[in-house]
């Protein structure tokens, strides 16, 4: 298909497949009041079970973020809290319960929740607060305590299934991943060996993360020989449930200038949900991520993500998911992500480092608090503050993404250290 050489992403382009895509996003209008910068972030260690309550974990993460930005809580104007299902905690009104720990009392405060996508959706909500001009300083906090539901949080997860059509079949949450993974492998003829490489890479990357729960050197054979859960998914294909919290601080340009010479700018945000009728979709491609990425890239003026993105934090609760999401984010062609991984392109010293933090597979998966290894990590990478985890190449622009609900939601944030 030929693309019109003068196509400026508007309706003047009538030839080729691009037309449909252009039309679909042409309705998106945004009038930003001011730019948004990130000036501080913090997180707690991710562990299977922590003694601290959700409030205490939130406090610890916020304190670190405030310290990095050299700010006081009194400088914070508004607070966004992200936390996943109340069923984990056995406590409704979880947003209100976590209020004091997240520094939200006596100021505008809200909780957002889109399942696993919350870790990147909460920073998107923080972006609205500042970009709209309603706040000049917005604190974003994400907390998750999965261990309260015991012996295993899977017992709480089963309540995400449709009570009438799905639950009589005694499903486990892993099923949806297994079904999606198998479809993805089938359509692109991908071997499990190639997918396992993601688990090997991320768990090794996590060795440099002080918060990591499951950092280890493993081999592809270890993954392929690990305990079967719902084949093709095996134990080492999956990230662990965790407790933890993360925080970051988003500010307007005139505040950022006072705090640091090198803020990281949020240049694009996007989010989208696909139908709940997930058995009616072809699961091989995450359209929800592609739609969200399209919105974020348009806002960030990115037309060729593979060339313009220097570092990525795609959501990796399962090893195939990182590959799946790379393709949704346009960082690889459909079916190409396993090849890039095998060739070392996505390694920390590669041309397109993916999950240099160690991701959810290595650092841990406290649902919403994975903001710490996605949005916060991207900020640290672009601010050159990632320490031992800093990627080898020079970085300007990066993308982070999360995913959740019934294989439904894609949330995408693009950041850049150039305004």
């Amino acid at each position, binding site marked *: 298909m030929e693309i019109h050489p003068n196509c400026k992403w508007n309706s003047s382009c009538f030839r080729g497949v691009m037309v449909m895509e252009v039309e679909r996003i042409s309705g998106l209008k945004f009038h930003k009041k001011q730019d948004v910068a990130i000036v501080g972030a*913090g997180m707690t260690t991710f562990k299977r*079970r*922590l003694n601290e309550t959700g409030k205490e974990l939130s406090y610890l993460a916020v304190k670190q973020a405030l310290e990095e930005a050299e700010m006081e809580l009194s400088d914070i104007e508004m607070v966004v809290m992200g936390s996943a299902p109340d069923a984990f905690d056995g406590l409704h009104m979880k947003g209100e319960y976590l209020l004091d720990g997240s520094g939200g009392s006596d100021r505008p405060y809200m909780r957002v929740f889109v399942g696993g996508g919350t870790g990147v959706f909460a920073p998107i909500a923080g972006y609205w607060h500042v970009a709209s001009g309603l706040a000049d300083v917005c604190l974003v906090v994400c907390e998750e305590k999965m261990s309260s539901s015991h012996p295993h949080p899977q017992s709480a997860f089963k309540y995400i299934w449709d009570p009438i059509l799905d639950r009589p*079949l005694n499903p486990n949450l892993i099923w949806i991943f297994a079904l999606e993974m198998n*479809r993805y492998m*089938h359509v692109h003829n991908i071997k499990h060996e190639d997918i396992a490489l993601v688990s090997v890479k991320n768990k090794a990357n996590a060795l440099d993360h002080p918060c990591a729960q499951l950092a280890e050197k493993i081999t592809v054979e270890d993954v392929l020989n690990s305990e079967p*859960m719902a084949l093709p*998914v095996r134990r080492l294909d999956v990230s662990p449930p965790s407790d*933890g919290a993360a925080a970051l601080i988003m500010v307007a340009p005139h505040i950022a200038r006072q*705090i640091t010479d090198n803020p990281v700018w949020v240049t694009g945000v996007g989010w989208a949900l696909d139908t709940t009728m997930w058995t009616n979709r072809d699961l091989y491609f995450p359209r929800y991520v592609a739609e969200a990425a399209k919105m974020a890239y348009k806002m960030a003026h990115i037309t060729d993500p593979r060339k313009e993105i220097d570092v990525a934090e795609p959501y990796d609760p399962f090893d195939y998911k990182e590959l799946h999401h790379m393709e949704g984010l346009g960082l690889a062609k459909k079916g190409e992500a396993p090849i890039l991984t095998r060739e070392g392109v996505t390694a920390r010293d590669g041309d397109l480092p993916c999950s240099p933090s160690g991701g959810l597979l290595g650092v841990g998966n406290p649902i919403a608090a994975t903001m710490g290894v996605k949005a916060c990590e991207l900020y640290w990478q672009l601010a050159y503050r990632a320490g031992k985890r800093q990627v080898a190449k020079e970085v300007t622009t990066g993308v982070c993404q999360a995913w959740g609900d019934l294989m439904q939601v894609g949330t995408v944030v693009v950041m850049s250290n150039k305004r």
Partner: protein
Amino acid sequence: MAVGKKDISAPPYAEGTSLSDEDIKKKKVTYVEDHPNIRYSWTAGQAVSKFLNELKKGKIAATKCNKCRRIMVPPRVFCELCYKPIDEWVYVEDTGTVQTFSISYIDPDAKPLEEPVIVAVISIDGASKNMGIMHVLGEVKPEDVYIGMKVKAVWKPEDEREGSVTDIKYWKPLEG
């Protein structure tokens, strides 16, 4: 607010206090235990009630939208793409194609199962492309299942059906 930023070389993090299962079992930490018992009755709604009642008769009902011309399973009373009421109810076949499958060794609580369950998304013959439901497969060895396999519903005897998706016991390979 401080002006100028001190140079923190590595990203800040806070140590939490890690606990093991033993700490809980041996009551080495202070905690409170509760087992909430909440009961629910979920009504099946307009579309799915009809779907379940037709399952009781051994038939799979679907809805059709004349605008996008999709035949939808599971049925709904409105087309979510055209955002209009559906136009008619139709029956679809009780045969289909395996779109994807998994061999599950765990139950809903992640406890290991002795015999694995084979779960699949089955696109139903007679409905639009990719219109599938999630269900389980039977009368087949795990190693013999493949994507693209034709399958047929195995119904419970009529007097045992209760208007549930489990009125179809499982789907078996359609031979020949």
